[in-house]
């Protein structure tokens, strides 16, 4: 019998009889379970998604205050917010998400995710790679095993024969992260890069700041030279030459990495530069997305996908805390959860993600672009004595749209207080497998990258 990933160890329930039958049948046909599910879900047409936008809600949003409200629960569980209807009869969202509620014809909601750690560092690694291996928590000790590559790196490599070939075609790297490097406290988490696939598949990173515009940390461009001004190639090349001269003077010329070399090449490509040039967008479009860091990052993501990037990850913030030095503040709301949700995080996510979905839909890009919004875990159903919620790995939500995902689907249910899945327990590895499936990757392709396929495709989404 064919073993598919870590299926037998992922959940307490283990595989169902039906799954065994599917695995048995698929092995007879010489197909993996993932391949079989892909065929079942998409028929002969194959995968629809050509690109993925991952909205990474770092810090762990509350499932109860967003997309899995429990209006019948006691007050110290349900919190102060009411619920509103969605476009799916009988299904309600938290009242702070009126725009996303209107998009449930395009959206699927998963309400039965669970992960293995309540530590941001480890849960973050699991969320981004599908595995805890190599993850480092608050104690600073890495978990056993080598870190797996980020989902974006896997998609990037599997969809490109070589980075040179792809860049030769479009001049643009296949995996971008918009937002700072993810941290827990002062320590960067494991799992945002190529890992065993090699640094060539690390993401190329952009940062957007509402006050200063788009920044490219890898190049540390002079302040006056923003990507919005990349059209002036002479100025750009001059600035880069100055940067190189400075590096040479500091004795660091030899240390310029391949990564930086690629970055330089990309920035001199008109196609790539157009991908992150927000000056080409109208003020009305920018306003629709919201002039927040996250909002404009979502707009950048759409531009990058238009430019041919197959995987874009938007980090809500680079840290988990709600009040910190940069970003829009994370979702780690141990205190002031409800005030922060009401004032900032909910309206911003509601506006920006809705704008992204509408924009992709209007441009006829949604069918070919899978949008996934998720954090590393959920938050405790019981409200603490600081009007906040603690970490909760046992139950949380994800929103998925486009790329062949059927709108109006609600996958999995949670128990009465959203403490545990009541049915269909799913994991980050399942989400990753589903994304890979949506973009058409077979387990053979995954294996061909030297990786072990893991997780089950959430076929209920297709």
């Amino acid at each position, binding site marked *: 019998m064919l073993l598919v990933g870590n299926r037998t160890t992922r959940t307490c329930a283990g595989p169902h009889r039906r799954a065994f039958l599917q695995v048995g049948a698929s092995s007879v046909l010489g197909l993996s379970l993932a391949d079989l599910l892909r065929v079942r879900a998409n028929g002969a047409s194959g995968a629809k998604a050509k690109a993925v936008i991952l909205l990474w809600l770092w810090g762990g949003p509350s499932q109860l205050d967003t997309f899995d409200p429990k209006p019948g629960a006691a007050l110290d569980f349900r919190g102060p917010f009411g619920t509103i209807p969605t476009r799916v009869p009988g299904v309600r969202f938290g*009242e702070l998400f009126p725009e996303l509620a209107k998009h449930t014809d395009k959206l699927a909601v998963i309400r039965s995710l669970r992960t293995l750690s309540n530590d*941001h560092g480890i849960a973050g690694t699991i969320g981004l790679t599908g595995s805890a291996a190599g993850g480092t928590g608050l104690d600073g000790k890495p978990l056993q095993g080598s870190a797996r590559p980020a989902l974006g790196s896997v998609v990037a490599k599997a969809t490109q024969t070589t980075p040179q070939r792809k860049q030769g075609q479009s001049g643009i790297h296949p995996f971008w992260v918009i937002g700072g490097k993810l941290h827990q406290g002062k320590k960067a988490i494991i799992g945002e890069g190529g890992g065993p696939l090699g640094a060539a598949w690390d993401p190329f990173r952009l940062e957007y700041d509402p*006050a200063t515009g788009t920044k490219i940390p890898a190049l540390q461009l002079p302040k006056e030279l923003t990507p919005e001004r990349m059209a002036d190639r002479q100025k750009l090349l001059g600035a880069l030459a100055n940067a190189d001269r400075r590096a040479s003077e500091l004795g660091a010329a030899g240390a310029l990495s391949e990564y930086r070399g690629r970055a330089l090449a990309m920035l001199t490509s008109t196609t790539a530069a157009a991908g992150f040039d927000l000056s080409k967008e109208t003020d009305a479009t920018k*306003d629709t997305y919201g002039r927040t860091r996250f909002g404009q990052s979502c707009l950048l993501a759409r531009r990058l996908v238009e430019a041919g990037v197959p995987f874009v990850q938007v980090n809500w913030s680079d840290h988990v805390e709600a009040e910190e030095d940069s970003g829009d503040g994370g979702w780690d709301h*141990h205190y002031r959860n409800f005030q922060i949700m*009401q*004032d900032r995080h909910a309206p911003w996510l509601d506006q920006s993600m809705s704008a992204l979905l509408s924009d992709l839909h209007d441009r006829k890009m949604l069918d070919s672009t899978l949008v996934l919004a998720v954090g590393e875990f959920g938050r405790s159903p019981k409200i603490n004595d600081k009007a*906040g919620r603690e970490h909760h790995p046992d139950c949380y939500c994800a929103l998925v749209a486009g790329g062949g995902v059927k709108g109006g689907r609600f996958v999995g249910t949670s128990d009465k207080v959203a403490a545990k899945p009541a049915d269909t327990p799913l994991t980050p590895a399942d989400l990753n497998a589903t994304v890979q499936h949506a973009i058409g990757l077979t387990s053979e392709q995954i294996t061909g990258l030297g990786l072990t396929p893991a997780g089950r495709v959430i076929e209920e989404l297709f």
Partner: protein
Amino acid sequence: MFTPRTVLVLITLLPAHPFAPSLKAEEPARLTTDGSFKQNLQWSPDGKTLLFTRIHEGKMSLWTMPAEGGAMKRLLPDHKEPHFDGHYSKDGKRIVYVYDQLQGTDGKLRINVCNADGTDDGTLVPHKAFEESPRFAPDGKRVLWVSTRDGNPDLYTVGTDGKDIKRLTNDPAYDLHPAFSPDGTQIAFASGRSGRQKVHLMTADGSKVTKLTDGEFLDAWPTWNPDGKRLAFVSNRSGNYDIWLMTSAGKELVNVTAHKAQDTSPAWHPQGKKLAFVSTRGGGSDVYVIEVK
């Protein structure tokens, strides 16, 4: 000839209804254009300065600017940690606010007080739990605020010497966003005790709680007109956050802003003829002023 400047809002007082027609004033005047997140607006009692919370370059802190617009200035530039939601004393000399001492992924909220120019800063209510939304009583002798020191958000007052803490509400629901009436005899606040967050009213000693607003909507941040006859508040009853007015009896609701953007943080001018508010109608989060009659 009517021009935008001469047309004042004609507030026909309408029955409370979610789809009550909105009657807007002239287009609001925009005071800021930087777009950075702002909230908790308040006019200084002399009407010359606006005090507000702003997130600038990743730092949440208190800022001031001239009431007609102009350069924004940090009130407490030496503070490295988040601080927010300032409120002037009636004489305009002191400001109470929330200070958030960060500890790992947690924060220790406390109530601080300083002079209106940011000097003589100190702690009024040390951290015990979630401490938020401090408001001076009109007589300047006590401060009203929200605390979870007994389990969930309730309303408390404390003397301006930091002593004599009194609990005003005791309900399992969240009691938030308190505001003293101009004469100090009543307190408006937001509470979820009916199942949805609604504006409530009670006497200043915490008795005689009545619910002023109804409906399946979120109503929050009530603030009194200086004449004590009307309240402005934030509600999403129009489908998104707008600024609404009602009488102190909870009647005659009218939507003052009626815009598809998010309009929040209403603040009455001391003479009661204008409302400042924060809106995202320009894309970012900016301060606007609208005249009301």
